[in-house]
């Protein structure tokens, strides 16, 4: 997993993506721009964060889950 470490914590790039979602719903393009990461990394990372229960997908956009929001407090 590129965004989640084996101990379940987000990696540096995972953390950047979660922080980029702090303001609410965001598209992969918006997250990539805020996080300063390549779009392909963000698309794959958001999938991982969603599978891990740290983000939620709503249509083409993503938002923090309760769990994800707690992690970046």
């Amino acid at each position, binding site marked *: *997993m*590129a*965004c989640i470490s084996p101990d379940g914590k987000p990696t540096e790039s995972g953390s950047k993506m979660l922080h980029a979602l702090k303001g609410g719903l965001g598209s992969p393009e918006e997250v990539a721009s805020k996080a300063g990461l*390549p*779009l*392909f*990394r963000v*698309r*794959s*990372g958001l*999938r*991982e964060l969603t599978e891990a229960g740290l983000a939620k997908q709503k249509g083409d956009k993503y938002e923090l889950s309760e769990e994800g929001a707690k992690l970046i407090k």
Partner: protein
Amino acid sequence: MEEVKEQASHMPRIGEPAPAFEAVTTHGKLKLEDFKGSWLILFSHPADFTPVCTTEFIAFTEIHPELQKRGVELLGLSVDSVSSHIAWVRNVEEKTKVKIPFPIIADLNKEVSLDYGMIHPGQSKTETVRCVFIIDPNQIIRTILYYPLTTGRNMDEILRIIDALQTTDNNAVATPANWRPGDKVVVPSPNTQEMAEERLKQGYECVDWYLCKKKI
């Protein structure tokens, strides 16, 4: 059985959609569709920790900033494990101070290699030859290059092809032999006699009606 599959595998062709994949890489699990909207150079190398491949990875890293300026992502591949890729990338950085910035697919089950026709049994039944697939933002294969195991790729040519493809797409023209950015481009051939006659009056530099060039 494996050999039969390798030989029977469909070879992708220019103009066709690039075969979809989901693969383990040094940057996590990636799908082809993750690159939608960007140009992508998918390239294979025979094996990690080998001399020619190491020079190529350094050379790909050197042109990476130029590729980024052109909206192009790089994705490597070989039939090695992700641990081997990570160890090799770290070794290259330790020995040469060059940090490989792009992901590399660990294609241990040869799924992607076979879909892309990267294994040429006449060269090696277990290693991928040096393939380059240039895939456009709509995920259509636009260029395929194959190099043998013993010949390292020419980065200058890869950049030139990207420039030529993007120029072609943006201006509806073609590029002549040995074209470089800034050189005159070829105006598409006319389809009718009327267009051929008009062509000669349009101020292009023409050898004849079928070969006209212009500046862009």
